[in-house]
């Protein structure tokens, strides 16, 4: 092992600390609902592709129909969520995670 074996009690102390609980809350409060949201959004698209074909076939401009726009919107939402997550992580997660990491490393 290249890493040091740590005293487990250090981790248990950190785990119960306010800073760590805040980090965990910020992580889960963003990623869990967002995961649920994009899965529902994707599943809606799959279900409409199976059961709402008349709706998906409505032409919007020229030969471009709802199905195509809906599909491209899945790309747009994926790019947007990736961008939003990287912003959230850089602003709200990284500073706190770095602070906690330095604290633990000093204790060793």
């Amino acid at each position, binding site marked *: 092992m*290249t*890493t*040091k074996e*740590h005293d*487990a*009690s250090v*981790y*248990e102390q*950190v*785990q119960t600390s306010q800073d*760590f609980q805040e*980090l*965990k809350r910020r*992580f889960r409060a963003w*990623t869990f609902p*967002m*995961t649920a949201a*994009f*899965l529902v959004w*994707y*599943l809606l*698209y*799959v*279900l409409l*592709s*199976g*059961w709402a*074909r008349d709706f*998906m*076939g409505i*032409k919007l*401009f*020229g*030969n*471009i*129909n709802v*199905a*195509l726009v809906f*599909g*491209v919107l*899945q*790309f747009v939402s*994926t*790019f947007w*969520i*990736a*961008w939003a*997550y*990287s912003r959230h*992580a850089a602003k709200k997660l*990284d500073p706190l*995670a770095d602070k*906690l*990491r330095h604290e*633990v*490393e000093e204790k060793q």
Partner: protein
Amino acid sequence: MSSEALSTTLFLIFVAATLGITFWASRNTKTAADYYAGGRSFSAAQNGMAIGGDYMSAASFLGIAGIIALSGYDGFLYSIGFLVAWLVALLLVAELMRNSGKFTMADVLAFRMSPRPVRTAAGVSTITVSIFYLLAQMVGAGALVGLLLGIDSPAGKALTIIGVGILMIVYVVFGGMKGTTWVQIVKAVLLMTGAALITLLVLMQFGFNLSGLLGEAAAESGKGAAFLEPGLKYGTEAQGLAGKIDLVSLGIALVLGTAGLPHILIRFYTVPTAKDARKSVIWGIGIIGVFYLLTLVLGFGAAALVGGKAITAADKAGNTAAPQLAKAIGDLMFGTVGGTILLAIIAAVAFATILAVVAGLTLASSSSFAHDLYAHVIKRGKVTEKEEVRVARISAFVIGAASIGLGILAQGQNVAFLVALAFAVAASGNLPAILFSLFWKRFNTAGAVSAIYGGLLSALILVIFSPVVSGSKTALFPGADFSWFPLQNPGIISIPLGFLFGWIGTRMSKEYNAAKYAEIEVRSLTGVGAEQATQH
């Protein structure tokens, strides 16, 4: 110069360049971290490109373009599932795994559990998933190269499979993760450039009028507006309710499978920190997303300019639609010389695509054998780093040789279902175990073992008794009928079963280690004690 000779020349240049890289990488591969994780010293952008190179297989390049060319809109459903899947990896898996693991998927699972049973289960599932995927790529390579180079004889195809197999073994055995990653980066650049070039030419041909291109494709297909709507291939009205449920099942397996594919998961270990793992997935999402938008134009372009009849005449499944489009658009815009050159470029890109993906799969399965099964299960951790890397190289050789043999035996079989099966097994067996071990306090050894074996076996058994294996004209054994499961893709049943088995297994055992859970939770979120990049 004929197109075959030109594409062979281009391909040989690619082979020479990648062998040069492999030789260089082998001189810089000394430790286990070098061999398994490329010294963890790739940048986020490099790893992002390698993620693209590892993920965009011949199935997604040639296969999706072919499905769109023949069945229209339905090919796009595949692209969307393959792309959205990366959000699961980005939000829930990549960073936490980089912080708490070392070389393989099993490292994360074994962290707070009894290591031997968990590593055995994870090793078995890693090797199963990778071999299915590998076999599909090898058989595809034989068929594809045969078509592109005009080799029809089984002996010629077998020779192609042997050639691809030997190159893949050389990349992995000598270059390890460093060599493999660079092969994937080069391939990603070539594939994106090739696809972008053809897309641009197709759009120019239609005066950058997307609606015009779609209209022409729909008219040429003979199916009219239906060609631009879902329902010609998956969940057709003729298949009834089962077909539509199958569509949902496929969709779920695609979106949840990626974050459980072992050859994708080990890519997160090749960067210095979890932040770089995050950035590399974002790079990967950008590259893969743009690529799938390009395949949309390629597919409809092939439908419009080559036409379904000419495509099915060359290959029933439509796998040659993209190369045929390259030839057609080149002929149209630059005369036959242009067509010959473009076809040669796309054919060479297709070879490079296959090689980069099979190398990644061989590396993932041999790493898991050496690190999980040999070093930790058989030798109980009492093994030197040097010995472990030696075993990894030997197992890469053995797995490579076995896949050459199986690839030749399975020639001409319909093995396309193996890729979908690999995704279903990854989503049913691996993903529940990974998510539970990162997020569920109570999760334990019995839970991990039952999630992996339960998910793996559910997916396998349902496929064996599905119309994919028997009881239909397109089945693996068309003459026999022992099918009772109506769906082609098992995901909708086997993925919830994987989670359920994990939950039941956990509840049946009293094992729980609060200290170890505190450690993995703190380490995964803060990066304390994460493996560092090696210095040379």
